[in-house]
C-alpha cells in the first residue's frame, strides 16, 4: 500500500472536511502547549506533508495501548491522526490475517524503506532465544530488528515498549526488555504510561507529521512536551499537600474533602506524565481527581517500586528481619569482643 499523496489529499479523499481538520489542528496546538497561532502553521504544513507509511508492531502487550487509542468507531478529533497516516500493518485492526497480513507487512517495509514510522507496542521477550512470543513463526526480537532497519523513527508506545512494563517486573521470567534495549541506532521516542493518554500518543504523531522530526526528549526518551512535569507539580490537590491536609484512609473525611493522597501511596512526586493537566477521557478526570493515588505507571519498573498503597517515604523492602539480624549480630560481636578483652585482662592479672 503506497501512501496516497499528501495528508491533506488523503483527508479530502476520506471525506474529512477542512473545518474538521482545522479543529483538529487547534486542539493539537492547545494540547501540545503551543501558542494558538501555531495551529494555522500546523494546518498548513500538515496538509502539505507527505502521508507517511506507519507500521505498528504489537509484541508482548495486553492491547491496552491500542484500546486506549481506538476508543470510538467514527473518526473523532483525537483519532483523526489515523486518517492522516497510512497504517500499513496493525495486527489487531487489520482485516486480513495470517499470511496475507504478513505479506502486507513485508511489502510495506520494502516499499518505504528508510521512510516509515515504526510504532511498537509491548515489550520484547528475549528468553529462550525469543521463543516466548512469535508471530507467524518469527520471534519478536527478529521482527523488531528487521523492521527497525528501515524505520525513520521508532515510537515505543506504552510502558511495556518504553521500559519493559509488566512483563519485566520481578522476576521477569521471559527476559522481557524494552525497545530501546534492542534498537540503539535509531531515534526511539518513549511514550510511556500504562496505557499512555490517547491524546499524548496522537500529539507525538502529529508533531512528527508536522515538523518531520522527533520532539525534544527527556533523559528517558520521553517527549518533554508531555512528560516535562511531575504529576505532583501540576496536581490540583497540591495546596492540600502544602498545608499538610492528607486523607488517612479511602473514603474518610479528608478523602471526601478532596485532600492530598500522599499518605495513601500516591507516587505523584516522582512520576512524570501529563495526567494532571491533559487528564483522561478527553479531560474528564485522572486517578487522583477520582480519589486514588498515582501508581507511577509512566516510570520504569513501577511495578517493583514499592506498594501502591504505601506512602513514598516507606521502604521498598521489609525491614524487620534484617534489623533483627543486624541487632543480634552486633550484640554477638560486641559480647565476643568483651569476652576477648576480659580474658586478656584476666591473663594480665594472673601474670601479676
Amino acid at each position: 500500500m503506497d501512501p496516497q499523496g499528501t495528508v491533506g489529499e488523503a483527508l479530502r479523499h476520506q471525506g474529512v472536511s477542512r473545518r474538521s481538520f482545522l479543529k483538529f489542528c487547534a486542539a493539537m496546538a492547545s494540547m501540545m502547549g503551543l501558542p494558538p497561532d501555531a495551529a494555522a502553521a500546523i494546518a498548513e504544513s500538515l496538509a502539505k506533508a507527505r502521508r507517511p507509511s506507519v507500521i505498528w508492531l504489537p509484541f508482548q502487550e495486553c492491547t491496552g495501548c491500542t484500546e486506549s487509542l481506538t476508543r470510538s468507531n467514527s473518526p473523532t478529533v483525537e483519532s483523526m491522526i489515523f486518517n492522516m497516516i497510512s497504517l500499513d500493518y496493525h495486527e489487531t485492526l487489520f482485516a486480513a490475517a495470517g499470511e496475507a497480513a504478513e505479506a502486507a507487512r513485508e511489502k510495506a517495509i520494502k516499499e518505504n524503506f528508510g521512510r516509515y514510522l515504526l510504532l511498537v507496542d509491548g515489550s520484547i521477550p528475549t528468553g529462550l532465544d525469543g521463543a516466548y512470543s512469535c508471530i507467524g513463526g518469527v520471534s519478536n526480537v527478529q521482527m523488531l530488528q528487521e523492521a527497525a532497519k528501515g524505520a525513520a523513527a521508532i515510537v515505543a508506545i506504552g510502558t511495556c515498549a518504553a521500559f519493559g512494563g509488566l512483563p519485566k517486573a520481578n522476576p521477569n521470567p521471559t527476559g522481557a526488555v524494552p525497545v530501546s534495549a534492542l534498537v540503539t541506532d535509531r531515534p526511539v521516542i518513549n511514550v510511556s504510561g500504562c496505557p499512555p493518554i490517547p491524546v499524548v500518543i496522537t500529539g507525538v504523531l502529529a508533531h512528527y507529521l508536522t515538523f518531520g522530526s522527533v520532539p525534544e526528549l527527556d533523559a528517558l526518551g520521553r517527549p518533554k512536551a508531555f512528560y516535562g512535569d511531575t504529576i505532583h507539580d501540576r496536581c490540583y490537590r497540591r495546596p492540600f499537600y502544602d498545608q499538610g491536609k492528607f486523607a488517612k484512609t479511602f473514603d474518610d473525611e479528608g478523602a471526601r474533602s478532596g485532600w492530598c493522597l500522599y499518605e495513601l501511596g500516591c507516587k505523584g512526586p516522582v512520576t512524570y506524565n501529563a495526567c494532571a493537566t491533559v487528564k483522561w477521557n478527553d479531560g474528564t478526570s485522572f486517578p487522583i481527581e477520582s480519589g486514588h493515588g498515582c501508581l507511577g505507571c509512566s516510570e520504569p519498573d513501577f511495578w517493583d517500586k514499592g506498594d501502591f498503597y504505601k506512602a513514598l517515604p516507606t521502604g521498598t523492602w521489609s525491614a524487620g528481619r534484617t534489623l533483627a539480624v543486624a541487632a543480634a549480630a552486633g550484640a554477638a560481636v560486641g559480647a565476643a569482643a568483651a569476652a576477648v578483652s576480659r580474658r586478656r585482662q584476666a591473663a594480665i592479672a594472673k601474670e601479676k
Partner: protein
Amino acid sequence: MDLLSVARGPALHYALFIFLFGVLWRLVGVSLLAAKPDYSEPRRPASWKGLRMIVLRFWPRREFAARSAMTSALGYVFHAGLFIVFFFCLPHVLFLEDLFKPLFGGNLTRLTGLSWPYLSGGLIMMSAAVTVAALVALLVHRIASPVKRLISNFDDYFSWLVTTIPLLTGMLASAHLGAPYQTLLALHILSVDLLLVWFPFGKLMHSFTIFVVRGISGMSYERKGAAL
C-alpha cells in the same frame, strides 16, 4: 536501577544494617567489659545518687558557665532543631512508622500501630534553617577558638559534615530547588545513608554513650565523696 531506587532500596537497607550492627557492637562490647576492682574505702555509702550526674552535666558548672554557656546553648538549639526536623516532618514520620511496623504492628491506614502527629512543611523548614545556622556557628567557633582548633580531629569535622549535609539536602528537596525532585531526594537519602554508616564509628555515638558514661562517672564520684 536509577539513583533514587538505589538510595531508597539497597543503600538504605545496608546502611541501616551497618548502623544497628555497629551501635549494638559498641554498646554491648563496652558494657560487658570487666570493671577494674576498686580497693579503696568508699567515702559515702553505696547508693544510686550518683546517677544525678546524667542530668547535672546537661549544663556547665557555675565556674565554667560564663565561658561555655554560649556553646552549650547553641548546641541545644542545634539538637532541638534536629529533633523537631527528624521526628516531626511528615515523610520521616511515615518512614519511621513503617520501619517500626515489625515491633508495633500497624497497617496501611495509620489507624493502628505506632503513629504520632507531624508539623507543617513551613515549620519544619524554619527549624531546619535554624539548625543549620547553629551548626555553622558552632563550626566557626570551633575553628576560631585556638584551643578547640588544636584538639579537633577528623572525627569532629566529618561528624559535623555528615550531620549538616542531610539537613541541607532535605531543605533543597523539600523546596524542589536546584535539580529534579528525584535527584534531590536521592541525594538526601544517600546523605542519610552516609550518616548511618558513620554513626557507630565516630563521636556521634555520644547519643547513646553519654548516658552510660555520665552514670558511671557519677557513681564513681559518689563513691569517692567528690562533688558531682
